[in-house]
């Protein structure tokens, strides 16, 4: 118990609370001295500026108080610091500051899973509400808040999950001992924690009823919880930007000898593509949210038509990040699919270079499509046509991936253990997400589809196929690398076979009722529309997915201690990380390796991918 309270996490949270209080009292004091209103009962005691400044200071106190930046301060003062902290064995290192990319990767993953559980629980609550028309267990305001928080928690969770996979794997895959900037890496993770706390705190401060998109003018008049949402995303955004910087620097500078661009494992290409987006676009969501924050706090009318502002401008700024963000989510997932397929098909990845380039293609075209979220927004009419062209263009590199995957499967020798099942499920679900895309792009049809459950079904398919299924595949696949034990196959298969059909039912029904008139983000629907029994089945499907994920968690935590031992190359992979024992040694590769062949030359004898300088690993 004492260890928990003295952990970095506990200290950080305590400091965050202190900083919050200090900040809020500071502003309250100044307001009292200036004769302004100091206490606001309708805003949960403090005034809004006090809450916001407190929230910001709390995040800073978390960073300062938990010791994450102390090495940098020591350097500034000219003091020496140790090169690499040794982490203690056991689970406590995951709650403490660590500079080891593997620990940080798992920290990211655990935080992501925690946010998925919270965001998923919110979804279950409002899905229960939707099972029948009329209001059963929620008020309108609670429905709106839970629905909005579900969205943003899942999004931040996915961003952290992406960072988890990339952080854990990329240094191993390129043969590095760690990331280029280990302290920045730790900082990127820890800054997300106060961000998550800020997001959740909005629940206690009146919530917010705008959805995760936070469009003004609605967000300019939502309860004070709105500001915590803005601030939380702003703070968590730093995690994305700095993490991406680190990945790019690591891949450019720290690859093993002989690992030319086209000899990198394909997941590294995906990590690069995703990091390029995160590094250059995240600023825009931070900026757009900051502008609304200032509009609320300082009366600057950026998006207030009464002051000459333009609410549609916000949507441009917001989607300039938030569309590419979708590719931040799915590119690593598609990378995992491309990475695992050859292992379980025992055949090279078909068209490696094309698959690698398609990731970059998607990332680049992804920057030019944002306004397809705004076809009905009232932006300039003629803009809709060029954005339709650019949007449909995304289909081309995405198609290259699908065709290459199918060609990889063709005439392979296919095995289907749990990770491969999730890879295949991911391809099918992502295909449905992809195929429900073009009707949204061809403007005329989008005029009907926009803001309906069709869209909800479409993006859940995209995100589950492009991220959630591959994420589960990655966990089942690399779990032995992290723990030296493997997860239970039977439970894994039950997880898959419960989740996949339920999920397909859920999203296909979403699309169906969306076409027939079900709007997004509504707490209640007209019983005359006849959606009640669809909604009931969707709710049952939703809870079945939750049950399957519960089975996953039981498997996950049980296997850490009781899983079957697996310290060797259990998947018979050619990838560098499987050529050393599991769990991965602290500094990854005791001997550096040299790349002497192609990464996916399955089916060739005597064509190794890597060679260790002095082979001590047997």
């Amino acid at each position, binding site marked *: 118990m004492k260890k928990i309270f003295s952990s970095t996490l506990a200290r950080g949270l305590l400091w965050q609370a202190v900083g919050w209080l200090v900040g809020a009292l500071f502003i309250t004091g100044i307001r009292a001295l200036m004769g302004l209103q100091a206490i606001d009962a309708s805003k949960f005691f403090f005034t809004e500026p006090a809450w916001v400044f407190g929230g910001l200071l709390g995040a800073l106190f978390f960073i300062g108080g938990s010791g994450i930046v102390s090495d940098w301060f020591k350097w500034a003062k000219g003091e020496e610091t140790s090169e690499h902290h040794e982490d203690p064995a056991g689970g406590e290192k995951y709650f403490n500051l660590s500079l080891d990319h593997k620990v940080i990767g798992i920290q990211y993953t655990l935080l992501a899973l925690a946010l998925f559980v919270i965001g998923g629980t919110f979804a279950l609550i409002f899905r229960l509400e939707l099972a029948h028309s009329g209001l059963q267990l929620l008020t309108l305001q609670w429905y709106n808040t839970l629905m909005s928080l579900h969205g943003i928690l899942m999004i931040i969770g996915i961003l952290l999950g992406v960072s988890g996979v990339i952080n854990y794997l990329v240094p191993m895959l390129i043969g590095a001992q760690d990331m280029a900037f280990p302290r920045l890496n730790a900082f990127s993770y820890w800054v997300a924690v106060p961000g998550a706390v800020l997001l959740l705190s909005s629940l206690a401060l009146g919530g917010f009823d705008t959805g995760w998109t936070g469009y003004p003018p609605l967000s300019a008049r939502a309860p004070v919880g709105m500001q915590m949402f803005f601030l939380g995303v702003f703070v968590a955004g730093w995690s994305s930007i700095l993490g991406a910087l680190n990945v790019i620097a690591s891949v450019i500078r720290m690859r093993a000898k002989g690992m030319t661009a086209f000899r990198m494992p394909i997941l590294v290409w995906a990590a690069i593509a995703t990091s390029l987006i995160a590094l250059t676009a995240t600023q825009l969501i931070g900026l757009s949210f900051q502008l609304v924050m200032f509009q609320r706090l300082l009366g600057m009318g950026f998006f207030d038509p009464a002051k000459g502002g333009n609410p549609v401008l916000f949507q441009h700024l917001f989607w300039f990040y938030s569309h590419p963000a979708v590719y931040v989510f799915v590119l690593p997932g598609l990378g995992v699919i491309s990475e695992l397929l050859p292992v379980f098909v025992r055949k090279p990845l078909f068209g490696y270079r094309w698959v690698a380039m398609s990731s970059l293609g998607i990332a680049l075209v992804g920057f030019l499509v944002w306004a397809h979220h705004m076809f009905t927004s009232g932006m300039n009419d003629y803009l809709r046509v060029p954005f339709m062209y650019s949007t449909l263009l995304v289909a081309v590199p995405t198609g290259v991936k699908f065709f290459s995957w199918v060609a990889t499967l063709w005439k392979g020798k296919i095995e289907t253990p749990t990770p491969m099942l999730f890879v295949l499920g991911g391809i099918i679900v992502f295909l449905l997400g992809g195929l429900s895309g073009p009707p949204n792009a061809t*403007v005329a049809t989008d005029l009907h589809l926009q803001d309906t459950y069709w869209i909800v079904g479409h993006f859940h398919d995209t995100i589950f196929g492009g991220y959630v299924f591959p994420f589960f595949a990655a966990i089942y696949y690399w779990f032995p690398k992290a723990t030296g034990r493997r997860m239970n196959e039977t439970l894994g298969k039950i997880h898959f076979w419960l989740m996949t059909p339920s999920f397909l039912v859920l999203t296909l029904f979403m699309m169906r009722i969306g076409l027939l008139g079900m*709007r997004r983000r509504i707490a209640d629907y007209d019983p005359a529309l006849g959606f009640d029994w669809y909604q009931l089945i969707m709710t049952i499907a939703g809870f079945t997915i939750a049950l399957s994920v519960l089975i996953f968690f039981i498997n996950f935590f049980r296997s850490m201690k009781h899983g079957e031992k697996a310290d060797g190359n259990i998947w018979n992979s050619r990838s560098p990380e499987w050529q050393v024992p599991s769990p991965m040694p602290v500094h990854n590769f005791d001997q550096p390796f040299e790349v002497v062949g192609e990464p996916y030359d399955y089916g060739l004898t005597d064509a190794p991918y890597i060679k260790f300088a002095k082979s001590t690993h047997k």
Partner: protein
Amino acid sequence: MRHFVIVGVLVAILTPLTYIGLSSAHMMPVEASAQSQIVDQMWNWDMMAVSFLLALIVVPMFYSLIVFRRKKGDTTDAEHVEGNTKLEVTWTIIPLITVLVFAYLGAYTLGETRIADPNAMVIKVRAQQWSWSFEYPDGFTSTDLHLPKDQQVVLKMQSSDVIHSFWVPEFRIKQDVLPGRVTDYRITPDMIGSYKVRCAELCGTSHAYMEANVIVTSQADYKAWVADQVAAAQALAAIPGPNAARGEKIYEQYCRACHSIDGSKGQSPTWRGLYGSTVELNDGSAVVADDAYITESIKQPAAKVVKGFDAMGFNPVNAGVTDAQIADLIAFIQTLK
């Protein structure tokens, strides 16, 4: 080669089957406007492409999963095939051309939905949290949207507060309604019937319930309805002094979304029994609901907030409520015992 032929045949069979399945599944609501037929045409083209692409990926994938499964006891790798540049170029170029064709079709159908009739009738639409009102060219206002069949109508839409979106599923078209700017919604209803416009852009607490009736009638029925409305409006306007019936109209247009008149708890305090009662305020004080208090609360909603409620962003004066109308409203409130 045998494998390719089988897969090719299966794709050729599955594509039309999928398309027939999709197009006979009644995926869309009825078509009640000229524009809806254009949208559905584009939708059908999309579904053709979807059917083909679905078959093109799913068939070889499942075929491989069945036919190319690892045999028991086989531990060898598969045949080493790295790729095929010709194939990759093919499945880049053909989708590229398809995409360009579809983008052209998308632009074409978008244009078709936007064709403007110079004789289109103009109706002004006012959206506010959480109600719609419609101002007709003949000078009266209604909370229902009546439209004549086969006559193009342009809705000039504006919001009093946040962003809303005008959507009648049977018309297919959707357009956001913005504060501070007018957006157009052009529609030619062509099927007599009763529909609903529902707000499609999340607009706050009661977004789910923001709806209004859309009634498409024959031209003759429409004219008769307009004549009735005009006569009623003129009769009402002619009554001198503050008038409760006029007040009720104003209530329906601006106030009903939040204030109930039957005592039920809404987003804002009920008006039933309000007049002359003693109202407890958020700051602990109390005030008698007389003409002065009600007028102040309409003009400055945040000045005196009733205990247990939040000040709302909606300001009736900004939305166009005049002093004379406030007097009518008070007359109406007085009748709500």
